[in-house]
């Protein structure tokens, strides 16, 4: 009796172990295929931002405000006093320019959604409110959004902003690459068109990577030999060139090259395995553990029945 249950247990353990190994092998294989190698849609568009050219005129901010029909700003768009603080994107500003003092002269840095190849916001959203379009834009659908704000935590660049003024009707506000009004019609975003200094170069992402490296090579000493966003978090649609080290002008240089989803992919791949294997494994253990007991209690029951039967006798 105990021989059979041990055989059963060993069998269950071996099967379970095999499946665990298989699962983890598949998981590893899946990871290698899915992350770090997706370079965005081949026809995806992007923008190369050249910080060495920006003069902080804020025309991009004004153009964005007009194109996206955003609320009136607190200060005029030609007011330079906003550079006294480091601003962030919010529900009424999809893009902001900040000023940094980095050695020789001020450096201005425009921030907006970087339209990642594998967006953290998209992969973290459990209602699929985000879409990476074939043109390269990361767009958002407020109709399905439940306002959990996980995307705000998942974004490595702190871009999605919650519309706190309408908390009962949750809406996330962020740059959508002018997808609806321009990008899908083959036009550059409003900020790119408005920029007087060609800080912003619009084109196919694959061309911009090439262009960025050529610009670095052809202007010796002008640039740091890196395109920020070429590989960061799996690559972004908006990429940056800088004349000073990126960390000096507010860039997070510790993000690594893996998409945000890779941080949780290992964990998430174990979830189905845990759900499938653990019940079988623990059922096996339970069977083994209770088989003897069943046997014992069976005897006990028999004894009890015997006793019961015997009880009325005296």
């Amino acid at each position: 009796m105990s021989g059979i249950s041990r055989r059963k247990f060993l069998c269950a353990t071996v099967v379970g172990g095999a499946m665990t190994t298989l699962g983890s092998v598949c998981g590893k294989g899946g990871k290698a295929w899915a992350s770090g190698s997706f370079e965005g849609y081949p026809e995806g568009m992007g923008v190369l931002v050249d910080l060495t050219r920006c003069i902080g005129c804020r025309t991009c901010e004004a153009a964005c405000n007009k194109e996206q029909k955003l609320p009136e700003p607190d200060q005029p768009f030609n007011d330079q006093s906003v550079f006294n603080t480091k601003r962030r994107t919010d529900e009424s500003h999809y893009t902001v320019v900040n000023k940094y003092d980095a050695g020789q002269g001020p450096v201005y840095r425009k921030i907006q959604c970087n339209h990642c190849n594998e967006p953290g916001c998209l992969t973290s959203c459990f209602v699929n409110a985000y879409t990476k379009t074939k043109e390269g834009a990361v767009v958002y659908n407020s109709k399905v959004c439940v306002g959990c704000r996980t995307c705000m935590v998942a974004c490595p660049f702190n871009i999605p902003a919650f519309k706190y003024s309408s908390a009962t009707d949750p809406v996330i506000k962020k740059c959508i690459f002018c997808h609806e009004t321009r990008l899908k019609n083959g036009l550059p975003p409003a900020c790119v068109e408005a920029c007087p200094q060609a800080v912003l170069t619009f084109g196919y992402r694959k061309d911009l990577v090439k262009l960025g490296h050529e610009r670095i090579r052809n202007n010796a000493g002008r640039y740091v030999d890196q395109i920020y966003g070429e590989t960061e978090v799996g690559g972004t649609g908006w990429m940056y060139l800088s004349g000073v080290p990126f960390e000096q002008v507010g860039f997070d240089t510790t993000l690594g090259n893996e998409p945000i989803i890779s941080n949780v992919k290992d964990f998430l791949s174990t979830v189905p395995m845990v759900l499938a294997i653990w019940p079988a494994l623990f059922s096996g253990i339970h069977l083994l553990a209770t088989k003897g007991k069943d046997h014992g209690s069976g005897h006990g029951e028999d004894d009890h029945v015997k006793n019961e039967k015997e009880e009325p006798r005296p």
Partner: protein
Amino acid sequence: MHTVTITICGILLTLLAAFIQPVQAETLPDKITIESLKDLYGPVTFGHAQHIARERDCAVCHHHTNGAPASQEKCLRCHRGGHEVKSMGCKSCHEKQPFSAEQVNGKFKNNLQFHQDKPGLKASYHLSCIGCHKQKGAGPVACVDCHVLTSSGEAFYRAGKNAPDPNKAGKTGHH
């Protein structure tokens, strides 16, 4: 026969010289008025003659296009002997719509063409003017040094009479 040919050649050469001379004179404007952004800003007048007198070298702004050797080393690889073009105006090379579908789709399609990273017309003015003025520490560099906002420009920048009410400030979003 021989004298007739010489005479005809002579007449043709004279005509050619007469034709070329005034054209060159015409293409050297003293002042250039730029009003491509006239809906936002008043026209900007560029003192061409003033810059010629100061710089004396066309290549500073016009690269290799007047036939003189290029000034930058990266250009010398191809334009050591200069490369004269028909029209030296900025707009003959720098596109008004640098991000049109045609421009964007044509990028890196011609492997023999070096000039893939050419700024558009508006950017070529600004990069050239501001870049040089900053380098030399002379000349206008700030937006308002050249540009006067029109009323639609004020609406665009939410400036002047379209400036936001300071009492309402701080009601939208967080900073």
